[in-house]
């Protein structure tokens, strides 16, 4: 009995191969984009963990000095006092974009992800100058000359050179340590930290690395896109499976009349959904791998460009993400088939043959959807205004998008009802009336389209706003022409004399690492100069802000610090236990995860007498010529002199890279939505005959009807696209004003780009036209006998 039932149910798919294809492709697309994004995220996270916790910095406490940088002597003093600590020297290798990580193999924590030095002679080679640098295979080609011999190791983060502590300090030309980590399980009886040196401080392990924190938002964006694609794919599957149920109503009635129990029928249909999900899910995982492999190099470039995070460009297969891929496929199939199964299990035996039973349920569904949509939009508003935290931000995003999608059918119905007043011709009026009636059948595809389009508007608005603000900010922040780094205080003094006659201004850049609000930060000392007064990107400030900074009675803080600790103009900043200053202004500081403060130069010198400036910002008439002279005549290495133009160009290049992946996903999502529209139109086309046949019989040509159908699809797409603009702007606002603030600590002003919307409308129309083309063609070529069958046969 079950077998016969299964055969009967399956025969439907055998006869409707296109529909079967739509279900499977829909599931594959839903699973594929989700899996692809997850694979990218997983790969990136593995890379961060590898990079960040190579030495356990992320989960171990650290010791810092309140009064300046850590040196090797601090490490030795701590060890001799009984503390089990390990030193790390980490920093950028100048002019290469590479990072040097030096560790001490003798004290590094157990289980640290550092090279294996077990082989004969390995430890000697590692310690004895020139030493060895361990690098990822992808990094080999980027190594400059003059480095120790390189050994290749897959477990090293790309772009990183792992070497012995002393070798690293030589490469970095530094006598300071970047951190001292405190191992777990410290022995009893060690000297208390405060007895050793009052300026030692034990700091809690940072929750995740800076990189992980910075990139969290990026990955949340990716995940959101993955979910969005998944939702769009689900719409496709839901529509296709719903149609298959609709078309098999008579079959269900017959099977049940012949004695197949309702429970068995539902079970068979559930099994069918399971099989479809397995096939679609498998294809989706393959697709996801392809997507991930194609996008990962871009993601890797983005992450290293924007955040300095190193991610391998090659993909490793992890069972976790393909398993979650299947889980998502099953969830998707269950969601798509669930409501149909639920209805089927509750309908009386003869009801399924009544065509309007489902239609009436649809009308009720539409009402419930509309109220649900309004409820979600309200929730989004409340979350947006009152919500707190990144999760609330994303919940707000989800509520906004889903609520807007649910309102699409109702909104379109209302709009078309309004528009139909303007049409006077009989055909026009029929088209409006018919379009309105068609909305429920296309609603899922239109919702998918709205999601894709509003995501597009939202993301392009965010990217555009980011770009506009970023360029303006770069101009302000990089107001000087040349940035020069000297190597010693003596050289710095000589340098100032050397350039004195050729420059308008030479401003020292001087900074110290201090603790701001309990986390590591920096304080800068600046000279009172027009460069700052005229250009510095202040977000807010007291009227006499620069006078007060110069006079040593005020401090400027960056936006991140202001937002993190709620310290704005007028508040008091604690720079050290005995050092407090009033905040007189807040400036924007994009791309910096840490807190920062700016004080007057004299105040800085008085506080940090040991620190003398080595870096200088120079304004000059002929910066290029001056740069040549500095290199040729003064003898500073070329890397030590940076031209402002180059920095800007590089920053913009990094920026463009950053959003390549976002754009790619945008296009993919739009493509999936286009597919959804095509699938809906194709399946709906066969059900359209009873609507079209009478009109045709009354004297409209099939070509005319097909043209009208195309127009209808275009109108619906256009209206959906128009609706998508405000939804997209809402999305952009949430991204800029909530998610960015929570994730990065800065807020970007929103800018709008109507030209982008016009382009998007055009794309929506092109997509709709492409999606409608095939179904329309088949209507135009439909044999009259097919249309006549409508009148001759009972459906």
């Amino acid at each position, binding site marked *: 009995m079950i077998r016969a039932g299964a055969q009967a149910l399956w025969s439907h798919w055998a006869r409707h191969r296109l529909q079967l294809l739509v279900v499977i492709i829909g599931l594959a697309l839903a699973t594929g984009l989700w899996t692809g994004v997850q694979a990218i995220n997983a790969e990136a996270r593995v890379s961060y963990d590898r990079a960040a916790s190579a030495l356990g910095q992320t989960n171990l406490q650290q010791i810092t000095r309140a009064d300046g940088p850590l040196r090797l002597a601090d490490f030795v003093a701590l060890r001799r006092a009984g503390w089990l600590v390990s030193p790390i020297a980490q920093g950028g290798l100048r002019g290469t974009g590479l990072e040097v990580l030096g560790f001490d193999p003798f004290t590094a924590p157990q289980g640290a992800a550092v090279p294996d030095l077990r082989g004969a002679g390995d430890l000697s080679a590692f310690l004895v100058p020139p030493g060895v640098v361990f690098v990822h295979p992808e990094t080999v080609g980027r190594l400059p000359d003059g480095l120790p011999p390189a050994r290749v190791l897959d477990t090293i983060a790309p772009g990183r050179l792992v070497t012995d502590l002393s070798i690293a300090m030589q490469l970095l030309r530094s006598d300071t340590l970047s951190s001292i980590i405190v191992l777990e399980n410290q022995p009893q009886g060690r000297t208390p930290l405060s007895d050793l040196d009052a300026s030692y401080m034990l700091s809690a392990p940072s929750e995740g690395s800076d990189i992980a924190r910075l990139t969290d938002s990026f990955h949340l964006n990716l995940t959101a896109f993955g979910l969005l694609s998944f939702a769009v794919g689900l719409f496709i599957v839901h529509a296709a499976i719903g149609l298959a149920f609709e078309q098999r109503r008579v079959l269900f009635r017959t099977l049940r009349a012949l004695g197949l129990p309702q429970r068995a029928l539902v079970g068979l249909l559930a099994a069918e959904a399971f099989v479809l999900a397995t096939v679609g899910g498998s294809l989706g995982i393959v697709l996801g791998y392809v997507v991930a492999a194609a996008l990962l190099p871009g993601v890797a470039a983005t992450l290293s460009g924007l955040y300095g995070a190193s991610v391998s460009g090659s993909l490793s297969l992890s069972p976790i993400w393909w398993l979650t891929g299947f889980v998502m496929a099953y969830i998707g199939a269950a969601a798509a088939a669930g409501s149909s199964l639920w209805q089927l299990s509750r309908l009386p035996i003869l009801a399924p043959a009544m065509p*309007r039973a489902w239609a009436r349920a649809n009308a009720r569904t539409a009402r419930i959807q509309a109220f649900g949509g309004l409820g979600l939009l309200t929730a989004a508003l409340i979350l947006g205004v009152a919500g707190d935290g990144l999760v609330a931000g994303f919940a707000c995003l989800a509520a906004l998008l889903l609520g807007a999608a649910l309102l699409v059918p109702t909104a379109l119905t209302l709009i078309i009802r309004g528009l139909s007043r303007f049409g006077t*011709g*009989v*055909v026009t*009026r*029929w088209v409006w*009336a*018919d379009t*309105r*009636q068609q909305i429920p059948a296309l609603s899922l595809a239109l919702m998918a389209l709205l999601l894709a389009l509003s995501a597009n508007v939202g993301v392009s608005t965010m990217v555009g706003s980011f770009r506009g603000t970023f360029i303006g900010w770069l101009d302000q922040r990089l107001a000087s022409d040349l940035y020069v780094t000297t190597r010693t205080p003596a050289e710095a003094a000589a340098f100032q004399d050397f350039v004195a006659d050729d420059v308008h201004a030479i401003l020292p850049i001087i900074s110290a690492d201090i603790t701001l609000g309990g986390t590591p930060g920096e304080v800068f000392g600046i000279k009172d100069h027009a460069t700052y007064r005229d250009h510095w990107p202040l977000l807010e400030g007291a009227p006499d802000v620069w006078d007060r900074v110069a006079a040593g009675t005020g401090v400027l803080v960056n936006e991140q610090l202001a937002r993190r600790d709620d310290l704005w103009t007028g508040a008091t900043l604690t720079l050290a236990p005995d050092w407090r200053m009033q905040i007189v202004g807040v400036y924007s500081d994009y791309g910096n995860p840490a807190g920062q403060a700016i004080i007057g130069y004299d105040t800085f010198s008085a506080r940090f007498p040991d620190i003398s400036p080595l870096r200088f910002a120079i304004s000059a008439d002929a910066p290029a010529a001056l740069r040549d002279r500095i290199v040729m005549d003064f003898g500073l290495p070329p890397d030590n002199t940076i031209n402002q133009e180059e920095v800007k160009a590089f920053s913009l290049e990094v920026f463009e890279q950053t959003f390549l992946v976002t754009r790619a996903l945008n296009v993919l999502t739009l493509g999936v939505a286009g597919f959804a529209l095509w699938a809906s139109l194709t399946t709906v086309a066969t059900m359209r005959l*009873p*609507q079209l*046949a*009478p*009109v*045709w*019989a*009354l*004297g*409209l*040509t*099939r*070509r*005319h009807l097909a043209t009208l159908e195309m127009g209808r699809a275009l109108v619906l797409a256009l209206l959906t696209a128009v609706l998508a603009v405000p939804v997209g702007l809402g999305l952009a606002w949430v991204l800029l004003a909530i998610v960015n603030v929570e994730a990065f600590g800065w807020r970007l002003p929103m800018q709008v780009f109507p030209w982008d919307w016009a382009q998007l409308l055009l794309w929506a129309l092109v997509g709709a036209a492409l999606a409608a083309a095939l179904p329309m063609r088949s209507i135009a070529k439909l044999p*009259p*006998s097919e*249309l*006549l069958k*409508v*009148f*001759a046969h*009972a459906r």
Partner: protein
Amino acid sequence: MELLHATDVSKSFETGEGPLQVLRGVSLSLTAGTSLALTGESGSGKSTLLYLIGGLDVPDAGHIRIAGTDIAGLDDPGRAALRRGTVGVVFQQFNLIPSLDVAANLAFHARLSGRHDAAWTAHLAERLGLSALLSRFPEQLSGGQQQRVAIGRTLAAKSELVLADEPTGNLDEATGDAVMDLLLELVSETGAGLLMVTHSMRLAARLDRQVGLRAGVIA
């Protein structure tokens, strides 16, 4: 005046077992103001002939002249114009446009053909007993009501030739007879010609002439 003249009309369909010859050289004619019943068993080709006359399909051979025009030579737009302006078809079922209400359905054909006459349409609605149902949608009507709307729609457009394909085939006998009465009455009032396909000899007898089809030829 000869409204319809069909000569040697043939038509075959492609099926899984090869071509099926449905009409094998049928000829018939109809004068304005008269009615003709086309009878025959299922598969005799009577509906096919009706569709060919209505410009809904194209004959393989032969000529069909309606009001002096040979429609066999018309292209698709030409046949559509014929359906709009000259002939009106009442099918057995699914005549109406689901998305329009009764009033709009009644007026639809007339508006298409540019002969909309509100007073005439209202008069027809009155005569057909539809005045109270004008704002309903097709799905809210009974079968008999739907067929009355279909008849009203054709007559509202002042079609010269009314074609009806088993117009009461889906109705019970009492309702069918009532619909039939209205159809014959109104057709004779307007002076149009009526060609009706039916398998019921009882109904056929009510028309002016009867022609029987058997296996694609006039019996």
